């Protein structure tokens, strides 16, 4: 069923680099949230975008083997695990008396559930994807960071109380669930195929991440300084990245790749 089934081809992007961007960038962004009322949430949402780029690269590495279920399914599953893991991690932070432990515990719990699912997939269901375990763990961790990053940006804090009252109780968490899934799974789902170029896929991942960030800014209150800054910076960055992606797509389109760009009218 999957047209992506080829698997394991050399990627143009080093997986360690995207993982580094996702983990370091994501967690720094999340942890800086409480220190400034406007810049903190902005950094948290930028951290979530970093995590989305990491997630998009991880999904591309796993799904290039052909899951048989389509690319979106593993994206939905990972973000579902991320949401449950983040809520449990934040609650653990409350239980242990230190809110700063919440986000990292959420990421760890998500990766653990992801590992359990991947092991079940390999041992019981009998899936033959060599990178399933690491890929699913990376994907669930990236999903968790993206959910906590956007939640922190809307709530303006990383504790259980602000996130439950302004993200979960308001129902925004359901929107984040679908939106982060789309942002993570869409890039590879749109770009897969024999000529998939990971750099181009990740350009699309950056654009889906930034447009999600613009929406998060609106959710955080468009008429407050915090929400407006996130929405405007997200929209500008989306515009830049989607232009980069469109340019890359045109350059790599078959006719252009074979014969070069056609000459401008005055050069004829």
């Amino acid at each position, binding site marked *: 069923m999957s047209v992506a089934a080829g698997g394991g081809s050399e990627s143009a992007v080093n997986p360690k680099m995207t993982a580094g961007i996702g983990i370091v960038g994501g967690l720094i962004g999340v942890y800086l949230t409480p220190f400034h009322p406007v810049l903190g949430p902005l950094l948290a949402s930028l951290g979530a975008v970093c995590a989305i780029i990491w997630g998009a690269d991880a999904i591309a590495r796993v799904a290039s083997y052909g899951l048989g279920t389509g690319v979106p*399914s593993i994206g939905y599953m990972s973000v579902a695990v991320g949401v449950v893991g983040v*809520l449990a991690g934040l609650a653990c932070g409350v239980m242990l008396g230190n809110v700063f432990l919440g986000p990292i515990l959420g990421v760890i719990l998500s990766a653990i559930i992801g590992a359990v699912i991947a092991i079940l997939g390999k041992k019981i269901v009998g899936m033959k994807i060599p990178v399933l375990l690491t890929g699913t763990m990376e994907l669930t961790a990236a999903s968790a960071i993206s959910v906590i990053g956007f939640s922190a940006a809307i709530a303006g804090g990383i504790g259980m109380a602000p996130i439950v009252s302004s993200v979960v109780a308001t129902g925004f968490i359901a929107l984040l669930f679908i939106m982060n899934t789309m942002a993570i799974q869409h890039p590879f789902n749109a770009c897969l195929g024999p000529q998939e170029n990971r750099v181009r896929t990740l350009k699309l991942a950056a654009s889906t991440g930034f447009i999600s960030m613009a929406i998060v800014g609106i959710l955080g209150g468009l008429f407050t300084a915090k929400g407006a800054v996130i929405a405007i910076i997200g929209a500008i960055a989306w515009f830049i990245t989607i232009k980069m992606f469109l340019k890359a797509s045109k350059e790599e389109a078959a006719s252009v790749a074979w014969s070069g760009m056609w000459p401008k009218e005055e050069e004829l």
Partner: protein
Amino acid sequence: MMDPLLMIGAVTVAGVLIGGGVHFLPVGGAPAAIATATGVGTGTAMLAAGSAMTGLITAAAMTGSPLWLILAAGAVGSMLMIGITMLVGNWVYVWGVGTVPASAKVETDPLTKYNQEKYVTPGTEGHGIPTVCYVSGIIGGLLGGVGGGLAYWAMYESLIGITSFATPLKYVGVELVPAAMIAGIFALGLFFVNAVIASYNIGGTIEGFHDPKFKRIPKGALACLIASLATGIVGVLIMNGGAF
């Protein structure tokens, strides 16, 4: 407050019901989208999203009622949604694409005894949603809806006894109960996890209980049981976050 072990047990049972229910759905995937295979032309995640969310809304509407009523409401919501999806899909296959609903996996429909072979276009694996697939899909909706309702009920009952989750919040004039939303998103997450594991087990596409792939259901149920157990154990931790 609900006993955490009871909550984990309920979530595990819910996960098995959801995962089992997915095996009954006529998931056609990409081949069905171009009418070359029987079933609804989309993946499990999409079908699960539609029916799970409808089921959760109807189950949540019964919040505070006895357990059987919540489960029944969830089941009816999911069955309605999957039924409407299959019905409208069939309209498209019959009047849009111009194919006869027929399955290539069986010679005659096990329920209506109608001949299938004659109506299957050569080179395809069937098209549309024949009676047996429709009935199977409704059974899948029933199991999934009961599972989703059970997971919602277990989480809601665990959280509603904790003051900070039970106190309604005001947001643009609407009263919101955090416990209900956390239970809803938790049940939705559980639904997706089990739907995708079941989908891995069936290799993406299945027609229903008459499909040879249906025999894989014990493996799928076992995988869903373990995954739901893990999710339930992590979910119990959420209860400890009420001390803020």
